[in-house]
C-alpha cells in the first residue's frame, strides 16, 4: 500500500511515496529524492557509509525508517555546505584523506556530528566508527586534529 509523506532534506521539503512503509531513509534519499552522496555499504548499521544528520545527530540511514522522520531535519553530505567548505571537508582535502573515497561521506557526516556536539581533535575521532577498507584512518586522525 503506497504511503506518501514529506521529508525535510537539506532544508528542502520532499514529498515522497513509498510502497513499503518500512522503507529506510537511505533508499528514499538515494532512489526517490536522487541524492547519491549517502552510500550503501552493509545495510546493517555496521559500516557507517550511510551516516546522515537527523536533527544534528549522526544517524544511520540504512536502518532508519524514513516515515519516522517526518518533521525532522535531515542533512546529507550534499547539504553540509553549499560551497563544500565545511571545516571537515577542507581538512579532508588538506590532509588528502580519501583513497577510494566510498566511505568518506559517512566519515565526514560523523565528524560533523561530533563537532556539533562540541568535540575537537581526538574526541571527534572517538565518536567516529565508520569502516574504511582502504585504511585511511591515520589521515582521518590527522584531519580531525585540526578541527
Amino acid at each position: 500500500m503506497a504511503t506518501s509523506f514529506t521529508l525535510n532534506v537539506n532544508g528542502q521539503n520532499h514529498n515522497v511515496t513509498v510502497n513499503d512503509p518500512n522503507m529506510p531513509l537511505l533508499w528514499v534519499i538515494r532512489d526517490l529524492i536522487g541524492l547519491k552522496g549517502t552510500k550503501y555499504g552493509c545495510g546493517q548499521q555496521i559500516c557507517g557509509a550511510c551516516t546522515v544528520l537527523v536533527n544534528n545527530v549522526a544517524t544511520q540511514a540504512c536502518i532508519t525508517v524514513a516515515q519516522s522522520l517526518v518533521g525532522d531535519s535531515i542533512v546529507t553530505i550534499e547539504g553540509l555546505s553549499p560551497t563544500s567548505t565545511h571545516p571537515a571537508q577542507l581538512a579532508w582535502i588538506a590532509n588528502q584523506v580519501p583513497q577510494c573515497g566510498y566511505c568518506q561521506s559517512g566519515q565526514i557526516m560523523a565528524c560533523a556530528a561530533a563537532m556539533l556536539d562540541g568535540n575537537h581533535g581526538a574526541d571527534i575521532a572517538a565518536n567516529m566508527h565508520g569502516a574504511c577498507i582502504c585504511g585511511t584512518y591515520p589521515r582521518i586522525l590527522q584531519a580531525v586534529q585540526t578541527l
Partner: protein
Amino acid sequence: MPEIENNERHEIQSSDQQETESRKISRRHFLATGSAAGLTLGLALQAGTRKALAQPPGIAGPPANTQVNTWLNISSSGVVTLTIGSSEMGQGSFSGLAQILSEDLMVNYNTIKTAQGVPATGAQQIGNSIGTYGSTVTWTNYWALRQAGAAAREMLVSAAMKIIGDQNRANYTVANGVITYTPNGTLISYGLVANAAARLPVPPNPPLIPDSEFQFIGKTVSRVDIPSKVNGTAVYGLDISLPNMVYAAIQHAPAFGGVLSGSLPATPPNTMAVVPTQVIAGTGRGTEQTGMVNAIAVVASNTWDAWQGAVNLNVSWTTPADASSLSDANIATQGLSAIYKNLPYSPGGPNTPPTSYTVEGNYAAADQIVKTAPKQFSEIYVLPYVPHNALEPLSCTVNYVPGVSIDIYVSTQVASSVLSLAAQLTGLPLNKINVHTTWLGGGLGRRIEVDFVSQAIQVAMAVGLPVMLLWPRPQNFVRDQYRPAAWVQVSAGLNSSGNVVGWELINVSPSILAQRGFPVGAVGDSQATEGSSALPYNLGTISTQWVSHPSPIPVGFWRSVGMSINTFAVESAIDELAEMAGQDPLQYRLNMCTDPRWAGVLNAVASLCNWSSPPSGHFYGIAVTKYANSYVAEVADVSLATGNGLDGHPNLFQVNAVYIALDCYLAVNPGQIQTQLAGGVAHGLNAALYGRQSFNNGVPQYLNFHQNRVMRMDEMPQIFTTLIPNPAQSTPGALLGGVGEIGVPCIAPAVANAYYKASGKRTRTLPFFPNATMQGLFFYGPGS
C-alpha cells in the same frame, strides 16, 4: 572523454616527406593524429605487466589494431587532457599519470585534465590491455608517458620554431605550457601551435628532464579526485542514474552449485519483474558452470523494493549431490592430506587435483638433506578462504536498445572485458557498445570479474528498460571469488651453525587459473606460487611445490594474490628457523640474504623502528618480500592485551604500530605511496585478524560484516614509513616498483612473529580471531 571534434585520422605531412600515421619510437608505439582540435598522441602499454588474466577464455577480445591505453591531447586552446584507460580505485592512478606527464610536457600538474578512457572503436580507442590490477599502472606507463610528454613538447617547440623562423633549439625555453623565444622574449602558448605541431614528425629521442630538475615527479601532489570525494559528487558505479531507470537486486542459490528448481516464482509485491540469470561462458568458476541458472534478479522502481522482493522470494533452489563435501572440515582434510597424497604433473594428462607441480628445485634432493640435518623443522601454515568486500557492493547499470546500442556503466577493473562480454551477449558491433568506467569504491581484485556484469546485461535484455543491478551486501559475501584457502608446509634442515642447508615448501591451494580455463603448466599456477620461490635467501638445497586442491569453491584475485599466502608461510617459517638457530630474526635474514635491495629494506625498517630496542612492553616482528618490482619490509609492534572484547572473546594482543620500508626504485608521489602502504597494511591486517568465509554443505555461512569483522579506526596501528631514496638520475627504461598491493603480504607474518615474541605462542593458522564478531560495536542513532 576529451571533447575533440573531427576525430578522423589523417596522414601527417612534413615539409620534407609524406609521413604515415603511426610512428614507432624505439620500443614504444606512438600514434600521432591531428585535427582542428590540436595534437594527439596515443601511448601503448609496455610489455612486462602481469599476465592478461582478465580476458576470460571463450570471450572474443576487441580488435587488436591498437594497443593504445592512454591518449594525450593538447588542444588549440592549450588545454592538456590525458585520457586514461585504467581505472581509478583509490590508488591514485589518474593523478599519478598526470603528475608524470606534467614533468616533460612542462605544464603545471594542476592544469592537466584527466578523463576516463572508453574501450570502443574510434580515433580515441582504448585497447585491450587496460586491466587495472597487479600494481602496474604507474610503472608500465612511466617511461612511455615521460617520452610522450617530451615528444609532444618538442613537436610544439618545433612548430614554434617554424613560426619564428629560428631553428636553433637553444633559443627556446618552455615553462607552464608556454614557449619563450629568448632572443626577443616572444611568448608562444602551446595552444597556438598545437595544430601545426600535429603535422610534424614525432621525434624519436626527445630529451627527458633530468631528475635533478624535477618539479613534479618525486613530490607529493594533491589528487585530482579527492575534492569530489568529500562532498558527495563523486560518481561510483552504484550512483548512476538514468532516465526511466529501474533497479534490480540479485539473489543467488544458497549453495554453490545450486540452481533454480521448479517454476519461476510470481512477481512479488511492489516489484515489476522476476528475471532468472544464467552463468555466461567465461564468467563461471568452479561450481558455477556455463548455463546454470544460479540466480534470480527482482526488478522494481527502487532498490529497496527490489531487494526486499529478492530476499523474500518464494523460490526453490537445488542443493548439489556433493554439497556435503563443500564443508570446512572436508576442505581442510583434503588440504592437509594433499600435501603428500597427490599425483605428479603429467604433460598432456588430466592432472586432476590433487596434482603436484614442481615450481623449482628437486624434492628428493632437498628431502635427503632436510631429513638428515642436525636440526629439522616442519610446520604447516593454514590460511582460510577470504572474501574481498570492497565497501562499494557489486553493481552494474545497463541501458540496452536492441539492435542499436548498449551502454554499460560499471565500477570495473577490466573495461575491455566488459566490452567483449557485451559484444558476445548482444551481438552488437563494438562501435555500438559504450563501456563507462565509473570510479570504484574499492576494486581489490573482485572487480576483475564480470559475472555481475553478465547478469545485469541479461536483466536489461529481459526487461527492456535501463536497469541498475545491485548485489546486496550478503550476496557479495556468499558469491565472492575468494582468496584461495591454503595449506603451506615448510620444512627445513639446519646445520650445526644454524644455517639452512635444505628447504622444502609445499603449497596446497585451489587454482585460480584452472578455474578460468587457463592451462596450468609444469611449474604450476603462477598465481598460487608467487612469493614461494626464487627467495633471495641462501637456503641450501631447495624444493618448491604447488599441489592443486580439489575444492571447486570459486576463487579469485585478492589484493596481492598468492603473495599474501606464501609470504605468511615463508616469513613465519624464517622466524621459527632463526629461533632454532638461536639468532635474532633480522640478523638471521641479513646473514643469508642474496639480494642487496632485500637487505636494504630490512636495514631501513630496522633503523626506522629501532629494532633492537622496542619500547617496554612492546614486541617487534619482522617480514620482508618483493612484488611488482618493489621490495618491502614491515615491522609490527605488538603488545599483549588482557580481558575480553565486546564479542566475548579474548583480546590477546593489540598492534600498536607498523613500520614500513619500501624500495620502489623511484617514488613518483611519496605521499600517495605512504597512504597506499598504510592501506595495504590495513587491508592485510583486517584479513589476518578476522578475514574468513566458512562453508557448510556448500552454503557460505558468513553473510555480513557483523560475522566477518571489519577493522575500525580504534584498531588501526600507527603507520611509519620510509622510502629508499630516489636515484640521483634514473636510468631510462629501469623498472619502477608498483605500490598498490605491496603493503599487504608482510603484515600477517610480522604480526605473528611479534605476537610470538610477546606471548611465546606461534600462530600458524589464520585468522588470528576466527570467532570474532561485531557484537556490541554499535553505532549512533536509532537502534544503537
